[in-house]
Structures are given as C-alpha cells and as structure tokens.
C-alpha cells in the first residue's frame, strides 16, 4: 500500500483527470453523434482553438498580470505568416507558421518594451492604439494583400498543406495538438521557477524586484512566449478559414474575445481558458445558428447581455463559481460529520 501511494505522487490526481479528458477529446471524432455532424465538430474545433488562444493570452494577462488588448496583432501576424506562405509564395504553410511565430515574438518585444512603462488604463489604451495602427497599415499594404486579403487556392488536402476539404476531422486533430502544446506548456510553467516569477510580478512588481526578480525581463519573455503561441493559433485559424483579411484577425473585437474568454473562465488558472471557451464559443455559434437569420444582431444582443451579467456577477470567472460550490459542499460535509 505504501509503495503504491509513493508511485501515485509523481502523477497527481489532477494530471490523471487531464489525461482522461484528453483521451476523451481524442475519441470525439469516433463518437458517431458528433462525427456525423460537421457543425458540432466545428464548434468543438473553435472551442479548442479559442481555449488555446486564450491560454496564450493568459500567460501574460493572467499569470503575469499585464492586461493586453493587443493580442489580435500577434494572432494576425501568425495568420498572415501561414497565409502568405501558401497564397503569395505557393509553398506549404509550415515555414510561414514558424516565421510568423518568430516575427510575432519579435514584434511583441519591440512594442511591449515601451508599453510596460505605462500603468493601468494607460497600458490598456496603448494596446488598443497598437491594434488600430496594425489594422490600418495592413489594410493598405499591398504586399500582404491589402484590404482584399488573401484567398486560398484549392489545393491538395492533407497534413502537408494543412488543409482538408472533405471533413473537419483533420482540423480537429490539429487543433487538439495545438491545445496540448499550449496547455502543456502553461502547466509546465506553473511549476517552473519562471511561473513563480511571473506570479510574483503580478502580485507586486516592487516586491518581486526587491527579491531579485528582473521584472522587465520576466514580462518581456512572458510576452514573447504569449505572442508566439498566439501566432500559432492565428496560423491555424487562417488554415481553417482559408481566407484572411485585416478586420478578420487584427481587430479590437478579436482581442476582446481572448480577454473575455480568459476572464470569464478565470484568469491566471490553467483550466480557466478552457472553461471560458467551452461556454462562450458554443453560446456564440449556437445563438448565431438559431437567431442569426432573424434580421441580424439578435445573437449579439443576447451575447452582450450575457457578457454583462457574467462579468458583473462573477468577476473571478467560472472557476470562482466552482470554488464556491466546492467550499459549500465541504462545509455541508463537515456539518454532517459533526
């Protein structure tokens, strides 16, 4: 018995829950009810994508406490990296994805360095301004396709071209891989020294510095990491949509979506982005499918009200609700035991 409990220590129950969850996700396309219905698979792909994207934001916004509204820029750079590799240069998207990720990290460091001197709302508004600048520049920049954007040609499907036409199952597994990469990385960061540095900077920059943490370096590295992951998600987004133009990826609404999902789920927690995406994305997709035809806007009207309600009622996010329920249950249990 003793030996067994020692063995279990290397694998916490939390990790086992995660592995079981992943196994379930791998099995999803084989569940006939979902596999037969491409809309359900589409919703699942978007959940995985936006959970990953929000997790990327969570690195800098949640763990490191720098609330950036500029992540659609990095998302867009990734999208354009893959898009231009395929459309402009007629290659496979892979080199474009890598270049996009590196470029996003470099751009993130360059623009964040001066921005990190700003505090609170000034930082937030500076990131709005950056999104708008990138949006306008890409709109008139002919080399990246300008306002027309990039339209994918129909080419052979498969993993090489990262493109599937017959079914969405291929996209689903790629989204799952991205999800595992980003969530795995953040899980690893949580226990790593750097993860503690980030949280220390979030809780109090001066205190962290007095203990010898180089807060500027921590923030810049976190931002670069976050931007590279955002670019990875962006490149998947464009491969999935087979089209990209500036308002589609580099808009304030896109940035807000990443922030909303993370805050809704619970910022600075590993499961938060997944929780947030699992609620917000089906809400968005199903409300659009159901009310989208009713003379536009009804889905977004309801969406707006729900955002207000959720943000105002539970600012800690869904994870806060789960925590409350757990606390309530354990209280009840102790009462029964007494």
């Amino acid at each position, binding site marked *: 018995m003793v030996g067994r409990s020692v063995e279990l220590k290397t694998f916490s129950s939390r990790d086992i829950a995660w592995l079981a969850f992943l196994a379930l996700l791998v099995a999803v396309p084989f569940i006939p009810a979902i596999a037969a219905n491409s809309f359900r698979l589409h919703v699942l792909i978007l959940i995985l994508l936006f959970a990953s994207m929000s997790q990327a934001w969570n690195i800098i916004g949640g763990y490191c406490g720098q*609330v950036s509204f500029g992540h659609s820029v990095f998302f867009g750079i990734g999208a354009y990296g893959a898009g231009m590799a395929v459309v402009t240069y007629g290659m496979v998207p892979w080199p474009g994805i890598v270049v996009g990720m590196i470029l996003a990290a470099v751009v993130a460091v360059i623009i964040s360095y*001066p921005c990190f*001197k*700003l*505090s*609170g*709302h*000034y930082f*937030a*508004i*500076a990131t*709005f*301004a*950056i999104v*708008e*600048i990138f949006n*306008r*520049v890409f*709109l*008139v920049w002919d080399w990246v396709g300008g306002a027309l954007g990039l339209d994918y040609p129909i080419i052979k499907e498969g993993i090489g071209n990262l493109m599937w036409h017959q079914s969405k199952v291929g996209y689903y597994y790629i989204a799952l891989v991205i999800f595992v990469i980003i969530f795995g990385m953040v899980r690893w960061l949580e226990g790593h020294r750097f993860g503690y540095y980030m949280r220390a900077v979030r809780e109090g920059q001066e205190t962290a510095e007095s203990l010898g943490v180089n807060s500027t370096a921590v923030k810049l590295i976190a931002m670069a990491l976050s931007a590279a992951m955002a670019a990875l998600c962006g490149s998947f987004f464009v491969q999935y949509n087979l089209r990209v133009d500036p308002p589609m990826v580099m808009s*304030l609404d896109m940035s*807000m979506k990443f*922030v*909303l999902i993370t*805050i809704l789920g619970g910022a600075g927690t590993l499961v938060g982005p997944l929780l947030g995406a699992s609620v917000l994305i089906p809400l968005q997709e199903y409300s659009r499918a159901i009310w989208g035809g009713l*003379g*536009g*806007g*009804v889905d*977004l*009207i309801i*969406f*707006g*009200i*729900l*955002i*207000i309600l959720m*943000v*105002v*009622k539970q*600012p800690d996010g869904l994870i806060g609700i789960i925590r409350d329920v757990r606390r309530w249950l354990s209280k009840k249990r102790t009462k029964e035991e007494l």
Partner: protein
Amino acid sequence: METFIQVLIDGMLSGMVYALVAAGLCLIWGVMDVINFAHGEYLMVAMYVSYWLGFLANVDPVVSTVAAGAFIFMIGALTYKLIIRFTIGKPGLVALLATFGLAIFLKNLCMNQFSPNFRIMSDTWLSGKTLHVGGLIIALPQLTAAVLALIVVGLLYLLVNSTKFGWAIQATAMDREAAELVGINTERIYILVFGIGGACVGVAGGIMPSYLAVHPEVGSMFGLIAFICVAMGGFGSIPGAFISGLLVGVVEALAGFYIAPVFKYVAVFGLYLAVIFLRPKGIFGW
C-alpha cells in the same frame, strides 16, 4: 498656405467635437476610475435620437441635440444603476468588460431595429451652408457643432471647478469614504456624474447628424478617439482632454490631407503612443 490653414481649421472644428465626447468620458474616468467602453455607442444612440426626431417630427438637430443630451443622461444614469454600481471596488477590468458587453448590446440593438444602412439627414437648417472668410470656406454645420462643443465643455469645467456640486464631485473623486464622512451622498454623485458624462456625448451626438451619416458602427471610432484624448490629456483632467481633442482633430486632418486618408487614424494613434511614451501619465497627468 491657404490650403494648410483651411485643413487646420477643419481639423480644429472636428477636434472640438472630439473634445466634447472626450470630456464626458474624462469626467467618468476621473471620478470613478472606470473606462466606459460604451461611450461611442452612447454617441451613436444620440445620433439616432436626433435623426428620428428630425425624420418623424421634423425637429432640426440644432434643437433635438438638447433632447439627445437628456436622453443619454438617462441612459448614463441607468447604466450606473444597472451595471457600474456592481463593479465599483472590483478590478478596473471588470467595468471595462461589462461596458464592452453593453457596447455590443447597444450596437446590435440599433442594427436590429434600424438596419445597418447609412442614414443621412437632408435639408436641415444648416445643411450645405458655408461661411466664406477671405479665401477660406467654413462649413456651417461643423462650425455650429464646434461652438456648441466649446460651450458645453466650458460649462462642464465651470460646473466641476466652481460650484458646490463640483467640489462634491472632486471630493468624491479624491476619497469616497472621506467624502461620505463630511455628508456627501456619493452614490448620488456617481449617478449624476455618469449621467452628465453621458449628456456631454449626447449633445455631441445630437448635433452631428446635420453633417454626418448615422449608422450602428459610427460610434466605435469616436469612442476609441475619446479614449485616446482622455488618456493623452491625463487622468481626469478636463482641460487636458480638451487640448488633446483639438490636437487629435488637427493631426487627423493634416495626416488625412497631406499623407493619405487611410493614414489619418494611424497618425492619431501614433501621436498617442508618442505622447504617452514621453509622459506616461498624459500631458496634464501627475
């Protein structure tokens, strides 16, 4: 040279309207430390109020701007009562995201009710009239809006700085608990501040349909520009917001004319970044 002065004047006229939109936001930000993301949507709603009054009851925007101001005052007070009240004391991001939800709601409600079509008011009292001063041409609708904006910002400044009510607002902004100790009803101040901030943008939106088309997306860019003006001016400083409003208007006009129309917002946002990197708390910030 004449062209330059012409562009400069056009920029200043639109700058004054930006200043009025920003002044309302500035008051709310300064007193409650809340960024109202739905500020641009208030403007859009005010424009619809003015448009429909003109279309259905034949009221000129110059008159209905008062009604629009009163209407947005109520919407502002209601926003406080229903949403902002619950976010006070929580992290600043909560109010921002909640008002973002409100912005989506208002924008799509108008989209749903009034369709996304551009609506233009024709034959108002001022439409198409111009003033010729020397070689310069000044459009009368824009001039009226600018003068109105100047008056309202001036009144707002006087209200905050030289009335008893204004001192109560300032006291609440500095320290809510201390203000309550000396007998100020801070809850009422908050409601009125949100209402007055709304009324400013309501007046601006009310007069605008005489020269600008109304559509559900019209407010977004004005809202963003108002954020820029307020942050550039410095935390809660009405003169700061006014000056940066003018600056934004002038830069926008010059960049639009001398570089390319698409670059006018790049120039405006670039200006903000340049100013904020030099003075991280804005021109008048401390």
